[in-house]
């Protein structure tokens, strides 16, 4: 492992170092602003580093290519936004706020590892780093009962899913004797259950369980609403974006490695999972009255959509997946940003009552939230529209008609609950005078985040060309 390898690992190193630095800083003196500032600086540096770090295969475990850098940049940017959201949120709630950033950085590091991993070992390590940090993050507000419950649920379920994953990897290893993606993918495609021990396919399914759990795909999705609801809003945003994004980047890479001739049986399993996720996610959210749960269910459905892209895995499919993920990050961060902003000191703003008539009280905030929801539903002028378009295009290109048909139908079901929320916000109070409330103070960072995300939302929705060019540049090496 030479110097070149180390340099290619720069983004990972920066984030790892930042977490250590923040930890040390806390040891020296507790200061929320300082920890926050250091975190921002580290993340910003990490993002910058992705632009000029030379791509390289750094050891057998990590493939630091442009693809990885793109997703790392995306994850770090998301973390940056989440850090910005968290600052005001924590300041109002928790006495010991500084460790939050350490956990955030470590979790990000885990997710970033996933985007670069080309080996099952790094996959397992990445997931573990991510998970363990997440337990802490979810239950960070430990003197409240909901975060604690969410943390325990996540702990138990994520722990057992890790066990599934590890056992699956072990079975694959027992069968093939190798653990790097390229070889495994190629062997899975070429063997028609003719492997020596017949453990390959079950092992792969077990691995899928682990991956599916992280992505909250049906039927491994049940933790999602409870964790989303219980976790502090910024952490919910993290679970929804960074943790899933890293995993998805890995999935996309894995499938693109196996090329066109993939095992039909595995494809079948994936299709079942995708369809189940789309259906379950959208149906579960239909009449739910908790915003965070609705977002959780909707994220299940969105992961189902994304799985379509993964399954197609043509060049178009990978591009669509990447674009969709970016759009999804923007809108889910935006939506949870609004939730964060509206949350009071006692509890998060996740009930319908918190949003009733929001448009008449805080028009700008309501419109931003509406834009995010409509983007989730895939309505034009927003990034979500083009993302869905791209996704359906990828599916149509590969003649995955059933999948995209289910996608279309379920996303229409999905529109129903987004519109329910929108309808609640635009519900006109009968008698009250309509005096628009000003935006609350103490939240400049959140406002900046929301405005920026809205700008991205519209930008990607109307002039997606730059982003598309970037994505094509990033995935160029894979094919």
């Amino acid at each position, binding site marked *: 492992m030479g110097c070149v390898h180390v340099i290619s690992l720069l983004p990972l190193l920066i984030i790892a170092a930042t977490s250590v630095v923040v930890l040390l800083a806390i040891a020296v003196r507790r200061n929320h602003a300082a920890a926050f500032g250091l975190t921002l600086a580290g993340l910003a540096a990490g993002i910058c580093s992705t632009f000029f770090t030379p791509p390289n295969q750094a050891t057998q475990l990590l493939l630091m290519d442009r693809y990885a850098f793109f997703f790392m940049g995306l994850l770090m940017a998301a973390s940056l936004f989440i850090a910005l959201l968290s600052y005001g949120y924590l300041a109002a709630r928790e006495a010991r706020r500084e460790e939050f950033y350490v956990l955030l950085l470590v979790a990000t590091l885990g997710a970033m590892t996933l985007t670069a991993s080309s080996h099952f070992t790094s996959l397992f390590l990445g997931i573990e780093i991510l998970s363990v940090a997440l337990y802490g993050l979810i239950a960070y507000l430990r003197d409240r009962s909901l975060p604690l419950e969410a943390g325990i649920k996540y702990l138990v379920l994520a722990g057992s899913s890790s066990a599934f994953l590890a056992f699956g990897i072990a079975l694959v290893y027992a069968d093939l004797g190798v653990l790097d993606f390229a070889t495994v993918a190629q062997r899975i495609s070429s063997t028609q259950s003719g492997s020596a021990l017949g453990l390959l396919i079950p092992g792969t399914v077990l691995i899928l369980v682990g991956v599916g759990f992280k992505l909250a795909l049906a039927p491994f999705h049940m933790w999602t609403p409870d964790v989303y609801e219980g976790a502090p809003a910024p952490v919910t945003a993290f679970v929804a974006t960074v943790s899933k994004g890293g995993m998805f980047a890995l999935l996309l890479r894995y499938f693109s490695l196996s090329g066109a001739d993939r095992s039909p049986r595995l494809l079948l399993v994936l299709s079942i999972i995708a369809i189940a996720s789309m259906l379950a996610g959208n149906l579960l959210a239909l009449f739910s009255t908790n915003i965070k749960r609705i977002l959780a269910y909707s994220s299940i459905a969105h992961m189902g959509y994304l799985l379509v892209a993964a399954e197609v895995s043509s060049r178009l499919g990978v591009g669509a997946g990447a674009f969709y993920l970016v759009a999804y990050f923007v809108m889910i961060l935006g939506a949870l940003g609004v939730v964060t902003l509206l949350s009071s000191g006692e509890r998060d703003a996740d009930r319908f009552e918190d949003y009733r008539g929001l*448009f008449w009280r805080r*028009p700008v905030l309501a419109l931003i939230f509406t834009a995010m929801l*409509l983007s989730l*539903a895939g*309505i*034009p*002028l927003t990034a979500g*529209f083009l993302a869905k*378009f791209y996704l*359906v*295009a990828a599916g*149509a*290109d590969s003649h995955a*008609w059933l999948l*995209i*048909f289910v996608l*279309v*139908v379920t*996303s*229409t079901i999905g*529109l*129903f609950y987004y*519109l*329910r929320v*929108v*309808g609640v916000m*635009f*519900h*006109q109070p009968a008698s009250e005078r*309509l005096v628009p409330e000003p935006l609350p103070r103490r939240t400049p960072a959140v406002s900046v985040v929301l405005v920026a995300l809205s700008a991205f939302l519209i930008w990607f929705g109307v002039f*997606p*060309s730059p982003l*598309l*060019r970037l994505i*094509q540049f990033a995935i160029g090496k894979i094919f």
Partner: protein
Amino acid sequence: MILGWLIVILIAGGLIAWPLARLHPLLSRLIALSAVTLDLALALVLATRDFGPGSTAGGGWREELDWSWIPQFGIHFHLGMDGLSFLLVLLTLFLGVVAVVVSWTEIATAVGFYHFNLLLILAGILGVLLSLDLFLFYFSWELMLVPMYFLISVWGRERRTHAAVKFFLFTQLSGLLMLIALLALYFAHHQATGIYTFEYQDLLGTPLDPHRAMWIMLGFLAAFAVKLPAFPFHTWLPDACAEASAASNLVLASLMAATAAYAMIRFLLPLFPEAVHTISPLMIVLAVIGILYSAILAFSQTNLMRLVAYASIGHLGFVLLGIFAGNSLALRGTVMTVIAHGVSIGALFLVAGAVEKRVQSREIDTMGGLWDTIPCLSGVGLFFALAALGLPGLGDFIGEFLILIGTYQAHIAAAAVAALGVLAATFYALRFVQYAFQGTNIHSWHLPDLAAHEGFVLGVLIAVLLWLGLYPQPVLQTLAQAASHAPALWR
């Protein structure tokens, strides 16, 4: 370039009108009105420049604008106008002005946001009518939905949320089916030629095997049939109309239907001639059933807006019939009907809205004897009811007559049964007049008659209908110019 301005002015007008309402609602209204009026003026400039008596009779796009938009997918911001699109653009802007004027007194809350939405819808409609790039078309098609959703759900009546959601779900699902079809066509074209493009002219000649062509056509048809709306996909319209304000209904029933009919003529028929021919018997049957069905249901409604909505569906049944009759007379009649239906049904919504404003109800049972107290409004209502029942001399008649006489050339039975629909229209139109305006004034109402701006708007609409009914030749002449793009259709 002027086409770009048409759209930009509307969007800019909406964006300016929105915040200005904070200062004073009147400012917002004025900005919106001037934006739409300016657009209408521009369109009239086009009328004299490109479609006037001096212009040559040749074909081709009279105005065109082509910018690269998303080169990665071969998507262009490509607008073009011929006689067909011009007519409907004119209709859109004309009714747009009407809608703004009518909203002057009707809309009192969130005035800025209202006008933003209204102008955005108009921009979306223009986008649909002008795009020559199928992606841009789809984009504009979907773009209309959100502002329309807001128009219903914010400024509607009691059950507005339900109605708005229903509208949105129907149109969204059908739109997504069209998206699949559109992409299938896109890739089929790529397969055949190796070029990725959404360009209308390029896709026109895409070779498709019949089976695939049928499926792709069905995808497009789903979107158009729902938006039109055609029987049996119509049920969102009455619900939406029952809740939305009069101006929204004008946009919803008159203009959205116009876009759907336009899309069928512009895209469905030329892109998939064989598939359309195969399915046309079914569609003709649906159209005829729809005509009769909606007439009967209109007859039984007690909500004024709902009644008019079913009347609208009946007229749109004729539109569907004309499109699938496979006859150029019928096709010309279709365009006439779209225009005349836009004016007459739109006006009926306005009349219903004006009545509602006065008696504070949409239920026909609570009215009666209004002629005693508001004779002018009642007379105007009578006039538009007559237009709706297809009285000769008014615009609707010309369209329906051409459709029926064209249909007769190919499908005698369909034309005969559909002609019964004209008779059935008499039932509900006269019932509307009877229950709303005639009878005894049991409530002893003393209501204000038409205000100046209402009278002016409705008067202009009456004049337009008479003009369309007695001298429709300019319209048909302009339409003839569109023939060059799909000569087989118009021959």
